[in-house]
């Protein structure tokens, strides 16, 4: 490049460092603006998909517009003043201070705006806290670094749940039903948020906070933990899946169906033995039996700080694992599910992870070395601060053929 020319041309305008800054600012601004236009943004707060989120939206939009107009006016006036009265070597004008009329007006005007905004705000706050129309309650518990859902027995919308259901990562609810989440934590503070369905609610150990959930139609709505909770906070995600009543009934039936042991002599049967020996001390698979017919019971409270590990009975009925960060579905199948029409969604979701759609690589990597995929507090030589317990899943140093067997076994957990 011809340096001399550039120097000459910049001399007349602005110093080159200042030009760098303005260029950077321009790029950042345009970048931010374009990011707002992304069409593949499932956590867009301006796209409510349920009654509660719509209430928030109706409240925030006018506020956003009013604030935007106020901002434009202020920026405009400041910009105008900066331009009009810029330093051109003129004399310093007469200095004055204070203008009571203007100041009173500029105090009263925002006060009126805020007072006006506060009316719908307070109404919405109370509406969003309503509990008298609950049709289903689900316990939601956060821990480092995943969410557990415990379905209470009793009615959930039009579906009756006879036995408790325990699952992880993916919340499944009936559509058009007022679900009340009862949120708490087993270790540090987390925060539950599905932007398309409602605002955030903190999960605080020892406290029970409630959050309404309602989805207008079947679909998958994603979210993430929004309270910094340590090492893998960024990998603590979640989703809510809404199904029609009949599909939800099917999902519940499937969660409560009897355990089907793999066929004797199969690879999966070998996997069952490997699972019982290596995994069942932390993970529960409902109704799994020892050779003598006694139930295999997990003791996660002895090994994990939070006292639990994900229930794996129906792992293959979820679409992602480990804090809902890694896909159990191949990219193709996931895209098909995520973009499915509401009418087709339920049937597709209930199929679970089929062998054709199984994203085996991720689960294999996980079994080979979990902390390499997701940072966790699991160095066996460095657990003195937790009394020997893990925060997360340790590397179990499994052999390749054990992993093959486990994969075959887990693929049957649907």
């Amino acid at each position, binding site marked *: 490049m011809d340096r001399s020319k550039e120097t000459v041309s910049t001399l007349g305008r602005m110093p080159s460092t200042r030009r760098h800054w303005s260029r950077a600012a321009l790029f950042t601004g345009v970048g931010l603006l374009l990011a707002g236009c992304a069409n593949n943004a499932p956590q867009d707060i301006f796209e409510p998909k349920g009654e509660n989120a719509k209430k928030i939206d109706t409240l925030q939009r006018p506020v956003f517009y009013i604030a935007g107009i106020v901002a434009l006016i202020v920026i405009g006036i400041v910009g105008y003043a900066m331009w009009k009265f810029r330093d051109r070597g003129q004399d310093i004008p007469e200095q004055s201070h204070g203008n009571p009329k203007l100041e009173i007006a500029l105090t009263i005007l925002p006060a009126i705006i805020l007072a006006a905004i506060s009316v719908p705000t307070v109404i919405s706050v109370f509406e969003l806290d309503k509990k008298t129309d609950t049709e289903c309650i689900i316990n939601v518990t956060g821990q480092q670094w995943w969410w557990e859902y415990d379905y209470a027995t009793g009615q959930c919308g039009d579906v009756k749940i006879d*036995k408790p259901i325990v699952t992880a990562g993916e919340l499944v609810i009936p559509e058009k039903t007022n679900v009340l989440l009862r949120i708490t934590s*087993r270790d540090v503070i987390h925060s539950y948020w599905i932007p398309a369905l409602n605002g955030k609610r903190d999960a605080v150990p020892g406290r029970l906070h*409630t959050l309404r959930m309602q989805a207008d139609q079947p679909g998958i709505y994603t979210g993430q933990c929004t309270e910094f909770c340590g090492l893998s906070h960024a990998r603590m995600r979640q989703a809510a899946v809404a199904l029609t009543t009949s599909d939800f009934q099917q999902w519940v039936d499937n969660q409560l169906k009897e355990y089907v042991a793999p066929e004797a002599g199969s690879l999966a049967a070998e996997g069952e033995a490997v699972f019982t020996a290596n995994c069942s001390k932390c993970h529960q698979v409902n109704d799994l039996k020892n050779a003598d017919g006694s139930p295999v019971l997990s003791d996660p409270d002895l090994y994990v700080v939070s006292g639990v590990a994900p229930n794996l009975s129906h792992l293959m009925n979820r679409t992602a694992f480990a804090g809902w960060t890694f896909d159990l579905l191949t990219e193709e199948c996931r895209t098909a599910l995520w973009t499915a029409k509401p009418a087709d969604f339920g049937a597709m979701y209930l199929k679970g992870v089929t062998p054709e759609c199984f994203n085996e690589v991720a689960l294999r990597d996980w079994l080979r070395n979990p902390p390499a995929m997701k940072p966790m507090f699991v160095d066996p030589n460095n657990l003195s601060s937790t009394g020997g317990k893990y925060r997360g899943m340790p590397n179990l140093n499994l052999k390749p053929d054990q992993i093959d067997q486990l994969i075959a076994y887990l693929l049957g957990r649907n």
Partner: protein
Amino acid sequence: MFTTGSKLFLGATALSTVSAIVFGASVGGSAGMLGTIGLISVAVVFAFIAGINLFTRDGNVSATEADVERNTAAAQAGVGRSMWPLAAALGSAGLVVGAVSKPVVFKVSFVILLAAAAEWMVQGFSERVSADPKYNEGIRKRLLHPLEFPLLAAVGAIVFIYSFSRIMLNIDKDAGRWVFMVIGAIITAAGFIFAAKRGMGKSTAAGIITVGALALVGVGIASAVSGQHPIEEHPEITSAVCLGTASEAQIEEIDTKASQSVAAKSNVLANVHLTSDEQLYALNTGIGYVQYHEIMVPQSNTVHVMFHNDSAEPRRLTIHLGTFKAADGTEGSEEADCTTAVEKGGTAFLTFKITKSQLASTTPYRLTVPGVEDQEIKLLVP
């Protein structure tokens, strides 16, 4: 002849030379080699700086103007006697004593030494800022008062609070109330008097405060020496009491003395009611209109339930926490926890955490009210 600066650096040169010799003679190997070279280098550097100081006459007095030497700031004698060398000596001694006795002595001495060093340095500096002692004193205050006042105030507050807390720990509960009120009243009254009597001399006020402070510290020390009044522990609620197998006396003791905790109602998993005709049911938080006889409790969650007694008798809510085999395989006995007995219309709070699946226990997890038959709320722990 020798200027002030050069004397300092000549001394440092001598010290490092001696150290180099001693070190070199006593420590062998490559460490000794390296150390000696280092110390010699230090000596050379100090000698060099001493030379420069000599040559430039410390850089502040022209060698030709002899009388300037007497009038410069640096040539002034220190104004006041200083307490800081003494404090520093005390601190150093304390450091040594602390090193072999108690760590707290070491820490306190270290703080004293640091404070003395800072004060001494600033005093030394400020006394030579100019030839005007008044101005110099002003400089010292300007530098140190923003540090000294808050620190002294903090120390004063700590001594005050500590003395007061020793007094309160020494006297018994009922006397404590009175002492609190009386001291509070005295302080308030003193405040009023100070505010009202404008004409009061500075020293009178200071005198009164000093006497008060000394009295407080004196009584505080006396109280600390005589020790604390006995503190009665809350008795631990036992399974036997909750299951109704303990003796009358033990049950009575728990009901009158066990600690009762109450927290916000919105945080409970369920409200458990015992009706006037002794029926037990639960209202699951979130669904107020269904009476539940089983509630799901997530494993390893700390949960709270609120017990409401509407029956005529005083009743407690007992949680049955299961029966487990001991590590050596022997059968265990049922574990339980409970609230204290509450009167009709009363409420009590029960907090628990169940870490094992129901299948691990040979007896069911449930809530019951001892004395009320055939009523229970199942706790489902999958």
